[in-house]
């Protein structure tokens, strides 16, 4: 009897720290195979690269916790980056009144985040108002936002941005890259929201059992719209970082980022059926994806094989998640 309980405890312990164990094993493995992996420069490089995915994945976690999904984050990221870059570079010209409205770095960034929030709000509104499955509604937004990006940029990159804006993606503060600070602030804010606020509790409640949450008086639609709006806003933040790092808004930026963020969420232990998961788990998931990407590049693995490996890791994460749910 005791042995059975011990085995059960051991399993639970293992399940709780599975992401951390996976990350540790991955780091040890890659550091044995490549001497460039365990260097300070590479560590900052990985952190800078994953900061965009962390921002998006935090938003995705909130969405997935409500048993939803957001496939549009990559396209929203591209559109918001393009809007910010376009406003920064070209402003708005009002021919009829001979007026030029110029945007400062702050103004352009705020505009980008507003656009992201608006698109996220639209996702939430379509899902709650018309009962469109999140997969379909956000898939539609994926196409809409990408099309809008192409229209806004006319298919060309927007370059020659303000050097102050470039600081956002390439600058350092107190010895740490600015994108890492930004993603850190996003993570801490999200942890506070999920752990310490009513909104956080409602998000878990909706994902756990939507009907029960409704019957207990939670305004489901309001919470869902808020969650998708936050996801849109965080995708926009990711867009600002990536545009700033490249010093250009690429019309095809963020392609496939939704899959990386879903992978980070799933690997981080958040259940795709909602109600279970954590922001820290997602951060670990994003770090695993980032380390995996970095390691495969350092080991000279073909990009095609990299996709295969990433897919297998996601599949393994889902299988483990299913097994854990069964045990629970």
């Amino acid at each position, binding site marked *: 009897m005791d042995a059975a309980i011990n085995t059960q405890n051991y399993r639970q312990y293992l399940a709780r720290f599975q992401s951390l164990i996976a990350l540790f094993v991955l780091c040890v493995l890659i550091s044995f195979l490549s001497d460039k992996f365990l260097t300070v420069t590479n560590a900052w490089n990985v952190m800078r690269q994953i900061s965009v995915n962390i921002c998006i994945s935090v938003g995705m976690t909130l969405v997935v916790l409500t048993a939803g999904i957001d496939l549009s984050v990559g396209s929203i990221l591209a559109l918001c980056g393009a809007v910010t870059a376009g406003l920064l570079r070209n*402003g708005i*010209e*009002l*021919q009829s009144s*001979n*007026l*030029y*409205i*110029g*945007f*400062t770095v*702050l*103004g*352009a960034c*705020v*505009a980008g985040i507003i656009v992201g929030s608006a698109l996220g709000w639209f996702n939430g509104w379509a899902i709650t108002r018309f009962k469109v499955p999140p997969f379909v509604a956000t898939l539609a937004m994926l196409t809409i936002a990408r099309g809008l990006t192409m229209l806004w940029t006319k298919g060309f990159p927007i*370059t*020659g941005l303000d050097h102050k804006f470039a600081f956002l993606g390439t600058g350092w503060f107190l010895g740490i890259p600015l994108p890492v600070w930004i993603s850190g602030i996003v993570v801490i804010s999200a942890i506070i929201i999920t752990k310490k606020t009513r909104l956080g509790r409602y998000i878990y409640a909706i994902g756990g059992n939507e009907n029960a949450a409704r019957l207990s008086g939670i305004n489901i639609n309001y919470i869902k719209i808020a969650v998708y709006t936050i996801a849109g806003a965080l995708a926009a933040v990711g867009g600002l970082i990536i545009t700033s790092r490249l010093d250009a808004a690429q019309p095809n930026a963020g392609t496939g980022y939704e899959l990386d963020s879903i992978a980070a969420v799933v690997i981080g232990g958040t259940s795709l059926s909602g109600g279970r998961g954590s922001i820290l788990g997602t951060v670990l998931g994003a770090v695993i994806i980032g380390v995996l990407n970095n390691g495969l590049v350092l080991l000279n693995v073909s990009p095609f094989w990299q996709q295969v490996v990433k897919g297998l890791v996601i599949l393994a994460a889902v299988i483990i998640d299913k097994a854990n749910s069964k045990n629970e």
Partner: protein
Amino acid sequence: MGKKVIKYIIVAFVVLLVGYNSVYFKKLDEVKAEQTAKTFNAAAYAQNFWDKKLTPGLSNAIAIDKLIPMLNTNPAQAFDSYSHALGIGNLRYFLIQGKGTVAAIDGDDVTVSIAGLPEQKVKIATEYIFGNAARDATGLININDFNNTMDFNNVSAEINAIIRSKVLPQLKHAKVGNSISFTGAIELNKEHVNLSQIEAVPVAVNIQP
């Protein structure tokens, strides 16, 4: 009620503060005039480079009958002394000059047999001029002088356009057996030096029957 009002006042204050620091207004025609003055004119830059830097500096080009033996015996010194490149890659550019005889004429190039090095052939492009060889071979254009890579690349395109309009027409009159002196830009791979297929982008040519 009081708390709510204070909350709204704070929110309004923050919104106004952010709004005030976010946008600025100007007359559109003034902005347009500023933009026109600031717009980089790649064609003018290329023409200026051609007239004031490239053409006067053609005599500094390394003679090919001196370069080839050095590339055979001491390639590292040849690359260090005479080649230029922007990045850290293996592709390097040389500005060369040489004399010889037109050995063959094809649709896209003229093959020159180099005087003093009869075995050495150089193909001079007569149809397709592309790439950055002419821009980078002199080492006189610095990428840091440009605000963005698009402007920098446009300079290359404009230099190639000048070559097409000023140099290539002269090569159209070449006949096999003509004497030819030329200056041109060539690209060589530092790690895999292949001297059997040297292709030059012509910058100046002089053909004698």
